[in-house]
């Protein structure tokens, strides 16, 4: 049942504006892939192209060897879950779920049996005869999920399905979605702007920006080894410090930041370092040391905020504005001269773009 999805060299325009540029993406059978990005990045456009609501200017979409590119939406056999649920307001919950089966010519009794079984799975068996207007947001989204799953589509797509729910329900629902998707082994594409949601639910995530995929990998790799400055910023590397190598000594590299501060970095711990690079550090990966002479970047501490696990300092340094975390045991006052020491395991080296 489950099939791989391949998107090849997809380009799309709205009028004369290009919204998607030569986008390629492959989703393995049974895999859940998220498209993650801010609004306008092209993630929803990609979903609409795959669903058949938009026509690409170039490129192909293939699902399990079947070329979908020219097929009308109603022949594509894709289960869709919408942001606003998009339930049929004039049909009962049961008829909403049975709608796709009806289009497939499944007869009345069999249709009702299957729709009821699916409602049972999403925990809504008792609400079968209600109209959607009488349901809560979470219940509506469960109906939408049941309606998309009951047709046993080879591909499921979610368009920001949880963004209209409150925070607690959002977390519960995404676990539920993931469990149902795993149990059915349905290939899935999940569109969201919420990084936590994407990382927690997906096998792989494609981070998108301006109609292109910036990086496509597992959440772990994206979080720890971003491939470029955009992804690094997106996944929370507050500090991107431009540096160049001034000396190499075996595995150790001496690099200089703007303002002349030098750091000795180990290629054994950080991977190969090119002559010009960007050092990306989260605030946690830049330790504040009182000792202004320590082997780090000299900086003057500014505003201090309390994070619970650490103090965070806004710092001014010759290399620019930096954000660093310091120990709770030694709160430091604004104006203190300190040294910011990169923690190799929590930093990464990016090429210059």
């Amino acid at each position, binding site marked *: 049942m489950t099939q791989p999805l391949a998107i090849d060299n997809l380009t799309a325009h709205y009028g004369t504006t290009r919204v998607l540029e030569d986008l390629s993406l492959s989703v393995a059978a049974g895999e859940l892939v998220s498209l993650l990005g801010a609004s306008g990045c092209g993630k929803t456009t990609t979903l609409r192209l795959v669903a058949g609501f938009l026509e690409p200017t170039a490129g192909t979409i293939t699902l399990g060897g079947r070329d979908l590119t020219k097929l009308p939406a*109603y022949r594509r056999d894709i289960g869709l879950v919408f942001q606003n649920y998009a339930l049929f307001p*004039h049909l009962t919950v049961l008829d909403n779920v049975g709608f796709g089966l009806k289009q497939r010519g499944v007869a009345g009794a069999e249709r009702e049996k299957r729709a009821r079984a699916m409602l049972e799975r999403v925990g809504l068996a008792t609400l079968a005869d209600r109209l959607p207007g009488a349901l809560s947001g979470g219940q509506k989204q469960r109906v939408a999920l049941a309606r998309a799953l009951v047709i046993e589509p080879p591909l499921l797509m979610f368009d920001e399905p949880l963004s209209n729910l409150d925070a607690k329900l959002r977390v519960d629902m995404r676990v539920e979605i993931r469990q149902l998707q795993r149990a059915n082994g349905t290939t899935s594409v999940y569109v969201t702007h919420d990084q936590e949601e994407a990382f927690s639910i997906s096998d792989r995530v494609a981070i998108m920006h301006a109609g292109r995929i910036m990086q496509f990998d597992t959440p772990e790799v994206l979080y720890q080894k971003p491939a470029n400055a955009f992804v690094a910023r997106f996944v929370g590397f507050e500090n991107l410090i431009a540096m160049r190598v001034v000396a190499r000594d075996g595995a150790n590299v001496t690099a200089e930041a703007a303002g002349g501060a030098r750091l000795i970095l180990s290629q054994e711990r950080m991977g190969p370092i090119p002559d010009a690079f960007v050092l990306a550090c989260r605030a946690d990966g830049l330790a504040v040391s009182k000792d202004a002479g320590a082997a780090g970047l000299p900086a003057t501490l500014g505003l201090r905020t309390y994070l619970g696990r650490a103090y965070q300092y806004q710092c001014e340094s010759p290399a620019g504005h930096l954000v660093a975390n310091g120990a709770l045991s030694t709160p430091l006052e604004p104006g203190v001269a300190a040294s910011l020491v990169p923690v190799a395991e929590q930093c990464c080296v990016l090429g210059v773009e």
Partner: protein
Amino acid sequence: MLKRFAGWTLAAPATLVVAVFLILPVAATIATTFAEPGGVFSPYIAFFNSGFRRNVLWRTLQISLATTAISLVIGFFAAYVVARAPGRLKSILIIAAVFPLLTGVVVRSFAWLIILGKNGILNNTLTGLGLIAEPLSMLYTQGAVIVAMVYLFVPLMILTLVGVLENIPEDVIQASSSLGASPAATFRQVIFPLAVPGLIVGAVLVFTGSFTAYATPQLLGGERQMVMGTLMYQRAMVAFDWVGASTIAAIMVVITITVVLAMSRVARRLNPMAT
């Protein structure tokens, strides 16, 4: 308490106007029909015993139901096009649809006299093209009245339906097609049922309007196509038969209410959300 009082106060002027100028006169008019010396229902028995008047009632029903049905079909498809049109084109189309409403009923009915007359535009065109040898007599037929009334009421229908169709969310239609419904199936199972409340409102407006119409049937139907409105006028103003006219009025009220109730029953069956 205060809130309820304020509510009543605000509604009072309108309630008073309706009570004094609508309910009382209608009640008084209908009351006279039950006070005849010949018996409580004698005016009604007289009405339904007259073959001529039964014919008038039957003709009026035919004309108004045909007008309603044709307006529904034309109006629905026109409204569908308008509702799906992009921004600017949509405004232009709505203005075009509403434009006829800016002139009076009499003027618009008169236009059809010019179009359908013996020497009218339509006859001249047809003879000019050699399609017919003799001018057709189209005036003073049931068809002429229906055509003119459809023309009169379609804008009303379009306006009612555009609002309803615009309110059907795009993603509901997309959901339908993603679940495998062809455009025709989506239309039948989603768009049409969701438009039913609007269709009923439009149908009620057009039916009551065409059932009680006076000017259009008078101008285009004349004596030969007498309807309830023109018959009532004749009874009251020509024959001074006030009880007869009141009887006709009462029958029209009952029929209108019956049809409206029947339509909302149909609406509930087609779409459980409709009230």
